[in-house]
């Protein structure tokens, strides 16, 4: 088989696999465009007979989605910033040494994220309310997400630092750099890609966070889109076209960013930045 035919075969194969894998996403978009009766038709149609674009405007208006998405963005940016500041240094130190304390540290970090948010929420809620943090609900959620997602960030970024040759840092120290100088001038720039990619992944997760926001943000003004989706879905899981229209508007922005950045993300992840 020639190189060319092989490539084409592999390409076709991967497109078929991607189509299967992405079907749920496709189904979301198609359902959003169907009318109420077409949605429940048997056999289901795989292409909307008359696309109902007005559903989007209707859902956007009636659910006030602009506000929800803005809150999701604020929360996600806040959490990522805090995680990156706290987590990067931690990952660096855990990668730099190899001793029993590092083992203990790694072990603790994993233990800290053992329980699902649905079980952590009660103690966190009680604690935050005693500290008065619930007066600033979005900040409270940002702190909770930070605690939740930082361990994962540390694990990813630690692997990035592992890929930075120790000799470079040592050389910088010999050249008269302080530890701080070596960290900011040599190590951090080399690990930049991996940190960025990990931060993007954390951002995407924080954008969809649900349990904490639901319990801690009572004022609808500050609720993110996940809570909005839940209060929309709650009583009526029969309006699937509207729900899917909501979901579409919720995930399409992050999907778009992701697709735009995906070359960078994938190369950042696979070029050995992470392992």
């Amino acid at each position, binding site marked *: 088989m020639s190189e060319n035919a092989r490539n084409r075969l592999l390409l076709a194969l991967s497109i078929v696999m991607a189509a299967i894998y992405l079907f749920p996403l496709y189904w979301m978009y198609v359902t959003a465009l169907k009318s109420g009766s077409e949605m429940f038709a*048997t056999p289901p149609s795989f292409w909307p007979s008359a696309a109902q674009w007005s559903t989007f405007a209707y859902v956007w208006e009636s659910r006030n989605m602009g506000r929800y998405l803005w809150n999701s963005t604020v929360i996600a940016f806040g959490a990522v910033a805090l995680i990156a500041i706290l987590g990067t240094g931690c990952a660096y130190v855990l990668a730099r040494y190899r001793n029993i304390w590092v083992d203990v540290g790694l072990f603790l970090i994993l233990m800290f994220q053992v329980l699902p948010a649905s079980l952590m929420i009660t103690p966190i809620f009680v604690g935050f309310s005693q500290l008065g943090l619930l007066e600033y609900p979005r900040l409270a959620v940002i702190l909770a997400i930070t605690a939740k997602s930082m361990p994962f960030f540390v694990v990813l970024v630690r692997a990035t630092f592992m890929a930075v040759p120790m000799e470079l840092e040592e050389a910088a120290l010999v050249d008269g750099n302080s530890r701080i100088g070596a960290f900011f001038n040599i190590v951090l720039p080399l690990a930049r890609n991996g940190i960025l990619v990990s931060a993007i992944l954390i951002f995407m997760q924080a954008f969809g966070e649900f349990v904490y926001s*639901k319990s801690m943000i009572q004022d609808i003004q500050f609720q993110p889109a996940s809570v909005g989706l839940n*209060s929309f879905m709650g009583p009526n899981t*029969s309006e699937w076209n509207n729900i899917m229209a909501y979901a579409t508007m919720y995930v399409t922005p992050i999907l778009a960013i992701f697709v735009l950045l995906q070359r960078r993300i994938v190369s950042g992840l696979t070029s050995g930045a992470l392992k």
Partner: protein
Amino acid sequence: MGIRRTMISVALALASASLAGMSAKAEDVKLVLWSLDRDIQPAPNLVKEFNAQKNGIQIEYRQLQFDDVVSEAMRAYSTGKAPDIITIDNPNHAMFASRKAFLDLTDMIGQSKVIKPENYFPGPLKSVTWDEKYYGVPKATNTIALYYNKDLFKAAGLDPEKPPQTWTELVATAKKLTNPSKNIYGITFSAKANEEGTFQFLPWAQMGGATYKTINSEGAVKALSVWKQMLDEKLASPDTLTRSQWDSTATFNAGNAAMAISGPWEIDRMLKDAKFQWGTALLPVPSEGAQRSSAMGDFNWAIFSSTKHPKEAFKALEFFASKDVTMYKDFGQLPARSDLPVPPTGNALKDSALATFVEQLKYAQPRGPSPEWPKISKAIQDAIQASLTGQTEPKAALDQAAARIKSIGG
């Protein structure tokens, strides 16, 4: 000196004016109200009307999910963040009242010109009562009855004016109406593993002569067996086990089920969505002439005992109660009042449905009251689910539930 003096006095005047303006605003008492009502249901609209009065009390509204009402409320209460007013599902009322989390309203009701206990139906009133004191005001009441699709009745050769009267007839009718090739089930209801399942099952058990304390009596076992038969023979969708009442009735509205068991909260949506002739009937009974029964549903108003403004909160409840008159017309919900004949709405279909539900309400019994209701209800749900999935026989499942309810001390 002249200019300077003028400027100072102007500045002072401005400052005091703005101070006055601010303090006038600060005088408004702010209340927080939580409820699960959506935009087309009473609570948010009543709040809007109340706020529009500008009587120095402003209410802030927050919508909750059905499943979250109790957990959010108790978490907020135990950390001192409770709202002032809440609407609570009537079987859960006792749990809060027995722990004095709700405010005892007995004295305020005694002096009120608007809220008078004798004006309420005994069932709803019993649900707000704990230890002979009133801990709330019934907000609305409802119960379940049978909806049926007249067009599908005709198509199956059945008389659309003769809905089934007994359990046997119900099963037979459902059998005739079921048409898998057209994706039509004979009946839809909800056996979901939450309070809704209990709410739907209790009337059947009670018609069979059981109460929640004797949930394993013969009549209840028969009721559960009928449910099981309907699921086993695919007269109802297997998704009955996981679908809420609202979702189940949606399949009726879409023409995928020929009968539905649900409450009056469906009427407004059905008028809009159902593109066929439909009617309502009382819940079928075990055999002809048997005692009727039904479960009493819907929410109560309550004031948390932690509120800083009990008087203002009660004033709000009085305002809400004064709007009971138009509740059915505006929202399709039934006030829990015996002194208010619900006026006709002018919509024949809506009025005839109303007649059915008002009749059915006469047989409605409250769930509990017991402070342990969530656990009792859970035992019943587990029995329903265990037998409908075929993992336990109805009798054994209900025996287990009865044992659990006894150990809870319900």
